C-alpha cells in the first residue's frame, strides 16, 4: 500500500509490557493511518492503549511487531540518538500536565525546542515571541509558568509544540485539566494554529466536549482500534 499523503501508517502493530512474569498486551494488531492535514482523535476507556499507541507513533516507545511509519520513516529501525533527533525536528508534543519547565519564563520555555535543534538564543527567542503572539500570549513573555492559568499554560505548551514547525503534533489529554470554556478555547487555538495542509495532529482524549474538533475519531478498546469514524462538522 502506498503511504504517500500519509503522516502515519500503522499496520498490525503490537506492544506487550512484561513485568516479571506478568505480561500485558497493550496494543493488539493495530491498523491506523493518519492523513496529512488531518486532526485525528484517539478515544477510549482508560488502559485501552491510547497512550501506548501515541508513544509508538511519536517514537518514544518501540513496538514489538508490525510496521509503523511516520512520514515514510521507520523509527524503530533508527538508533536511539537518530530517533531522538528525528523527534526533535519533526514531532511536537502537548501534554496533559503541560510539562513546562517551572524555572524558565514563558518565552524561554517556548524557545527550548529550537535551542535543542541548535538554533542561536536570539533566533530561538525571536521565533518564540512570534508564536506566542500567535496564541495570544504576547503580554506574558517574561512570566513564569506558575503564574499563568491552566488555559494559558496549555497555550504556552501549544506554542512550544509549534515553534519548530514540526510535521506531526501529538497531544495527550490537552483539555482534561481545563474547564469546558478554556478547553474549547485551547482546541480552537490548536485547530487554528497547529493544523495545516502539511501538518497532522493526533489527540488522545477522554473529553467528549471536544470531539467535534476532530476530522476523524479512532475508538480504542482493549488494545484494539474498534472503530474509525469521520466527524461531520469538519468534513
Amino acid at each position: 500500500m502506498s503511504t504517500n499523503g500519509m503522516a502515519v501508517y500503522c499496520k498490525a502493530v503490537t506492544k506487550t509490557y512484561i513485568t516479571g512474569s506478568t505480561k500485558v498486551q497493550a496494543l493488539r494488531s493495530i491498523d491506523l493511518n493518519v492523513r496529512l492535514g488531518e486532526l485525528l482523535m484517539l478515544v477510549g476507556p482508560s488502559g485501552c492503549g491510547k497512550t501506548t499507541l501515541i508513544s509508538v507513533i511519536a517514537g518514544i516507545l518501540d513496538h514489538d511487531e508490525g510496521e509503523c511509519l511516520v512520514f515514510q520513516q521507520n523509527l524503530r529501525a533508527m538508533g536511539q540518538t537518530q530517533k531522538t533527533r528525528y523527534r526533535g525536528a519533526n514531532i511536537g508534543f502537548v501534554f496533559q500536565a503541560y510539562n513546562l519547565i517551572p524555572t524558565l519564563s514563558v518565552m524561554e520555555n517556548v524557545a527550548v525546542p529550537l535551542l535543542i535543534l541548535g538554533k542561536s538564543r536570539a533566533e530561538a527567542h525571536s521565533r518564540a515571541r512570534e508564536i506566542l503572539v500567535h496564541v495570544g500570549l504576547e503580554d506574558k513573555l517574561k512570566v513564569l509558568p506558575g503564574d499563568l492559568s491552566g488555559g494559558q499554560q496549555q497555550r504556552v505548551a501549544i506554542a512550544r509544540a509549534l515553534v519548530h514547525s514540526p510535521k506531526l503534533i501529538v497531544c495527550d489529554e490537552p483539555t482534561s485539566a481545563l474547564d469546558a470554556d478554556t478547553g474549547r478555547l485551547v482546541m480552537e487555538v490548536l485547530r487554528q494554529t497547529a493544523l495545516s495542509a502539511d501538518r497532522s495532529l493526533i489527540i488522545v482524549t477522554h473529553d467528549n466536549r471536544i470531539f467535534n474538533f476532530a476530522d476523524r475519531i479512532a475508538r480504542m478498546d482493549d488494545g484494539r482500534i474498534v472503530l474509525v469514524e469521520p466527524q461531520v462538522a469538519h468534513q
Partner: protein
Amino acid sequence: MLVGDRGKYLGIIMGLTFASLLITQQSSIFTGLMTRTYGAITDLSQPDIWVMDPKVLFIDDIKPLQDTELFRVRGVGGVEWAVPLYKGLLKARLQDGNFQICNVLGLDDSTLIGGPPQMIEGNLSDLRRQDAIIVNDIGARTRLAKRPKEGGGKPVPLQIGDTLEINDHRAVVVGICRVSRTFQSQPVVYTTYSRATVFAPRERKSLSFVLVKAREGENLKALCERIRKSTGLAAYTAQEFKDVTYNYYMKYTGIPINFGIAVMLGFIIGTAIAGQTFYNFTLENLRYFGTLKAMGATNGILLRMILLQALMVGALGYGLGVGCAALFGYLFQGTELSFRLTQDLLFVSAGAIIIIIIFSALISIHKVMRLEPAIVFKA
C-alpha cells in the same frame, strides 16, 4: 533548572562550601603544624649542611656529640666552615618565681652563626656581653612575661635589661627577636655556645649539631656523603633535614591521621549532602528531563546540562569554602594557631570538590540516561 529551586540550590552550595571549608581549613592547619616542626631549620639559613648523631630522628631529638666532632667535620674536604650549635630545653626561673621551659640555642661564640632571622630590639652582637640572652617576641609577651603591676592587669612583656635565671645561672635580656613558630611553642632563647653549655646541666657531651657551609661549587649531596664516611655522623642538607623531621612526625605521631579523619569527614559529608540533594533534584525533575528527551534532547545534551549545573554549584561552593578558610586564616594570623594555606592545598581542595560534584552528577546522569521519555505521558 537547579537555580530555580532555591532550597536545593542553596543546600548543594552549602554542602560543597562546608566540604571545601573543612578540607581547606584542616589541611592548612595540618600544613601549618608540619611547617612548624622544622621551623628552627628554616630560621638557620646560613649553613648548607647539618651534621648530627646518626640516631637523630628529628630537629628536637637531641643526641649530643663530643666537642671534638666539630674538628673532625672541619677536616673534611669541601667544608668552607663548620660551627657548633647547642639546642636544648632548659628550665628558666622568672622574676615572679615561676618556672618556664625554654628552647635554648647556643651559637658559635666567635661568629654567632645561626642567630635569629629578625631582630626586633637590640643587636645580635650584644650576645657577647656578660650573661646575655636574646628571647623571641612571642615568648617575651606571653610565657616569659612579668606579672602585672596591679592585680587583674595585663602581663608586662619581658624587655631588654630584664633578668632571668636559667638553671640557676643569671641571664640578662639584651635583645628581642622574631623567629618562626616551632612545634613545641616554647619561648626561644638565643645565647652563645659556651654560655649555653654553662646553662645546661653538666654532661660529658654537649654539642647538638655541627652547622656546615660548603665551599662554593661543592655538590652538597657529595659533601654530605664525605662527611658521613669520614666521621660516621649523619649529615643532611637543610632540605633533607626538614624532610627527615617532617617524615618523623608523619610516621610516628597521630597528627596526620587526626587531620586526615577531619578532612575525610568533610569530604564524606560534602559528598553526602551534595550527592543526595543533587539526586533529589534530579528525581523531582525527571518529568522535565523526560519532556526534554521527548522533544529531541539527546543524552549528550542532558549530560552537558547536568554537568554544567554541577560545575556551577561546585565552583560556587569551592569559592565560598576556600574564601571562608582564607578568612579564618587571616583572622587567626599571629596567634598560636598554625595555618598555612598553600597553592597546593587549593588544588587539593579543588580536586576533592571536583570528585564530589562528578560523583553527585554521575548518579543523576545515570538516572537521566536510563530515563524512558514515555514517562511524559504519565499524568
